């Protein structure tokens, strides 16, 4: 099992209703499978993760099929709008 922290930002954070959530998931899980697992946990997460989501692993933007490891910091957020 891999224990990870999942962080949310902006609209995703508001819809999720929390800033972050701890999660235990099978080894070799991908970010996309984390998204799936959370979406099935409750309606808030489902709504929060329904749209276009950017994913980061340990503070670097990565693809949805990236695998996670124990201790990872995962983040889900909407397309950025700085500048």
């Amino acid at each position, binding site marked *: 099992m891999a224990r990870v922290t999942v*962080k949310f*930002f*902006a*609209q995703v*954070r508001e819809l999720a209703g929390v800033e972050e959530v701890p999660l235990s998931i099978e080894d070799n899980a991908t970010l996309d499978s984390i998204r799936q697992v959370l979406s099935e946990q409750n309606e808030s997460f489902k709504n929060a993760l329904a749209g276009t989501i950017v994913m*980061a692993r340990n*503070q*670097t*933007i990565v693809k949805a099929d990236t695998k996670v490891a124990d201790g990872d910091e995962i*983040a889900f*957020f*909407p*397309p*950025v*709008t*700085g*500048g």
Partner: protein
Amino acid sequence: MVVATIQFEPLNIGQLQAQLFEQTKGAGACVCFTGSVRDYNKHGAIEGIELEHYPGMTEKALLALAASTQKKFNCDGVAIVHRVGKVLNHEPIVWVGTASAHREAAFNAAMYAMDALKQSVPLWKREWSGQHATWVDSKAADVKAFERWQTSVEDE
């Protein structure tokens, strides 16, 4: 010289311009871009914005962007400073400064940094109007602006 900073305090763009020029003395060409809060959006008047960031990652992404811009355009210096938190109408949100031996590289570096920032740095804007704060959607034009740089790299 590569600098990247986020700050809650207002930006002093005159000072940033003077500092960059001093720190890249004699480079030849220096370009600065300042983006500021307009007091309207497509729906009407707004009363300022608020910028959310991802503590830790935003700083890293901004520094990585400044460093890659410096390398890509072979600049003497690249500096990026971005506001976070509440920003009032007309205040600067972001300041990008570049220095190079030639004006084309300095202009391209500043344009690239802005286009890439709007795609890759975790910052999210919401606009205040009355009691409501509305998240700003990402723009298709910004995606397109960034894509031209990827094409130009492939052309090389």
